[in-house]
């Protein structure tokens, strides 16, 4: 399978007063199409920073990232936005739904951004798929945490992304709800053939992926294939 994400000699540092704080140090990763990968590590190890850089949300201090064969660094903000819109899906720990849009409108949004007609039908099907057929016209504040995350899942898959980034997708949910969302996420991932990159503290969730990259103090300390595979994978 061809590589979908290539990270080479990646360094990320911030200026904190007169000091330079290096968050990521010399990261080299290659992820192939269809892989499911968990990025784990203690707080402050650089997981979220790495995800932000891989998803073209930020610029590294040095090093290169190739996403879907395109070098990210030379892309303009508009080109990155287009890349995210067409090929990337996101799931966030705190759901990140637009509060003034209904569940249906939130799901339609990525396709509408592309100017694709018929977004409503696709969005309805996906909401039905995640079990929210009767909640389509509800606003985020009228939904529970689990329901909000299911809307976020539907939104993440509506543009049939090549790669899905999930930041602690079950971190804000209780055990049962979290399990339901996990299961839905892996199912959808399988159906759509998406590459899945999950940032998580949860070793059980990480174990359900095909590969775990472990970070510590900004370094990759382990990159292993998971032996026990999730049934859904």
């Amino acid at each position: 399978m061809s590589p979908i994400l290539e990270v080479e000699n990646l360094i990320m540092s911030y200026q904190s007063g007169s000091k330079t704080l290096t968050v990521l140090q010399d990261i080299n990763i290659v992820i192939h199409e269809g892989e499911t990968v968990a990025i784990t590590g203690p707080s402050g190890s650089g997981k979220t920073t790495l995800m932000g850089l891989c998803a073209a949300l930020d610029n590294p201090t040095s090093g290169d990232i190739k996403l879907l064969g395109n070098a990210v660094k030379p892309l303009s903000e508009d080109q990155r936005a287009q890349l995210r819109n067409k090929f990337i899906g996101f799931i966030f720990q705190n759901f990140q739904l637009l509060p003034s849009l209904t569940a249906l409108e939130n799901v339609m949004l990525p396709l509408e951004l592309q100017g694709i007609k018929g977004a409503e039908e696709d969005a309805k099907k996906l909401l039905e798929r995640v079990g929210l057929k009767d909640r389509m016209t509800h606003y985020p504040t009228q939904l529970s945490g689990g329901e909000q995350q299911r809307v976020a899942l539907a939104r993440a898959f509506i543009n049939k992304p090549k790669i899905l980034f999930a930041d602690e997708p079950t971190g804000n949910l209780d055990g049962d709800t979290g399990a339901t969302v996990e299961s839905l996420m892996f199912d959808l991932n399988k159906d759509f053939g998406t590459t899945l990159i999950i940032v998580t503290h949860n070793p059980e969730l990480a174990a359900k992926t095909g590969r775990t990259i472990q970070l510590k103090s900004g370094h990759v300390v382990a990159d292993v294939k998971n032996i026990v595979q999730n049934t859904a994978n």
Partner: protein
Amino acid sequence: MNRFKFLWNIAIRDSRKNRSKLLLFMSSIILGVAALVAINSFNYNLRKEINKEAATLLGADLSATSNRPMDSTMMNILDSLPGEKAREMEMMSMSYIPKTDETQFVRLKALEGDYPFYGKIKTIPSEAAQTYKTGRSALVDESLMLQHGLREGDSIKVGKTTFEIKGKLSGAIGSVGAMSSVAPVIYINMSDIDSTGLIQPGSLINYSYYFKVPSSLNMDDWKAKRKTQFRSDNVRLETIEDRKENLNRAFSFLNYFLNLVAIVALLLGCLGVASSVLIYVKSKTNSIALLRCLGMKPWDAFLVYFIQITFLGTIGVLIGIGFGVIIQSALPVLMADFLPVSIQMAVSPRAILEGLIVGISVTTLFSLIPLISIRNISPLRTLRLSLDETSDQRDWLKMGLYIAIILVLTIYLWVLTSSILAALGFVVGIVISYLLLSGFAFLVIKILKNSIPSSAGFVVKQGLSNLFRPDNQTQTIMVTLGMGTAVLTTLLILQSILLNNVSLMDSGKQPNMILYGIETNQMTELKSLTESYKLPILQQVPVVTMKIDGWKGKSKAQWLADSTMTAERWAVNREARVTYRDTISEDETLVEGSLKRYRNASDSIFVSLGTTFAEALDVKVGDEIVFNVQGTRMVTYVGSLREIEFRNLSTRFFIVFPNGILEQAPQFQVLVTKTPDNATMANYRGAVVKAFPNVSVIDLTTILQSVNDILKKVSFIIQFMAIFSLLTGLIVLISSLTLSKYQRLKESILLRTIGASRAQIIKINATEYTFLGVLSALTGVGIALIASFILTKVQLKLDFDISWWIVMSILFGLVLITVVIGMFNSRDVVSNPPLEVLRKENG
């Protein structure tokens, strides 16, 4: 097109749960535009009416006016005009009302001919405008008749003659209501004027001639050819076109004032727009970050909110125009006393168009300042809420916007004031105030950071630290609040200075009554009458009238023909009223030379001039001036210059001769006294008018009461108009404080969560808002004091004598309002469970 449709849809969807958050934004626009449209509409309608009514305001095609009878040359030229002719003499005088045994200061107009030729003298009954011309009859101002309970058929005595009142005068030609309350008008027949005994040498009389000419004769051309000749003889010619110009010029002050109010309301509205949009953008940051994360381009994200704001802004502008049109109909009613014409409540398309253009352009520009920062909101915020997006790079687009705002404001002010200098002055003033305010705020933050005592309690430390913590709004609030305070305080201070200066004139031992036009042989009797009322004779001055024939070696005619003449015409042409004495009076300071006595016929005559007059005539100590003293040519030299104080009521003379020269010239006397109370004043005034009908009594207390009445009316208008500024100022205050609410909300919730009591949260917020209020109010009031000091000294040339209680009330009031609004904003945090508040805010 599709892209726009999508952005439009997103904009509408996104706004639907947040429209209430844009209420402040809409209110700012509505108030600012309403003020602008109302005031401009009123101004344009006033100008239109003046232009339409100019003929009836002048009452003739040409008027020729002088303060002395015209000589035969001038009269021959005027008499050569074809058509109808009328004559008027006008003077101030005291009248006596037998019915009530009271006296009244009046403006007496004696008419001959069918003036006015255009329009008519409005009387009740209407036939009185004709019947008063027969017998010893008069038309009397409506307000005077009302005040003294007079009716048609009653009598009024002016000078030595008693007139029968034929009717009420409800509208004199070309007069302004407020002026007639100082001296109500009485019309009599020209044939009766001599019988009053008021025409004497030195009497202050205006002589006017009115002409109605065939329409084929262009009076402006006729006047242009003869203007110089008439002007050199101190005759003022006025055509209908001149009257239009003069009236428009006279009302330019009203225009300036109203424009100032409109600009202030608009500027405050702009501040309201900028700060309310900033609040909105801040509350939308997460949504914007998410849109960006999902692939929306930076400029598209900007456009979504730009569409929302422009759409609502346009609705706000339209509502503002609607309000403006309604309010403008109230202005003519409020200002009726000051206007020479009655104004029709007409909608002014020009004012509406201006409101639309200025409203939309200013709203767009000011909202763009916070809106353009949308394009810099990073999608990374979806992962990290506490992302710091500050950049060291200069935002050139923002700089460009500031320049565009300054340019648009300057152009608009230029159009409004017709003066690029005034426009630039105003804009520079605003920029300096802005720099001062933000500089002071920066300094305060800097000082606070290093000076909070470690011994201060947690609550105080927390409250004060909020002022300099990351994302603080101290600078924004201090600038908006301070700017609003500065503008409003300046208005209030100037108003109080004007009122104070007027009331000062009647305080302490200052004279309050002048008796004018006393014949020399009446003086002894008048003095004893005055002493019988136990009144002091503060001044007794002889007055001789004369004209200037020449100066600095050239005759007046030579000077007037000389294009390099630097002297001002008022100084050259005036009929000078001169006194003679060898001393300096209390109101004068000798600034150059000395008062040289005249001992014998071989001595040169050295006169003393007031500095203002010397500057106007462009003469210095030692220069020659030739006077024409009622036919006798008199060569004199400038011996000294005096600075004359014009603060109180007393006689002042620009020209003072030494004793020993004018004693035998035809002259009259002036007596100045001080009455202790209104009753003595009324009795004394009545006795003088009865015994000496030819003597004019100028009574300061009555005049001051009238001036106070006028100023009260003006104050009411100022206050009415200031309501716009106050309301917009309040919106700016609410917007600014709401800005800080978003910064403090999560912090307060967190404090509540970890156990802070309600009282502690209240105290922390109160500390922060009190400090903000005090600092903003102090800075704003400081700027207002400087601005009003400069305006008072330079523009109004008055003493900077302010009522400090006004300043203190503003300071105290503003701090109170700041704290109240601040606390009101944070009421949710203290009265609800933390999680509920968070959910509400996030929803």
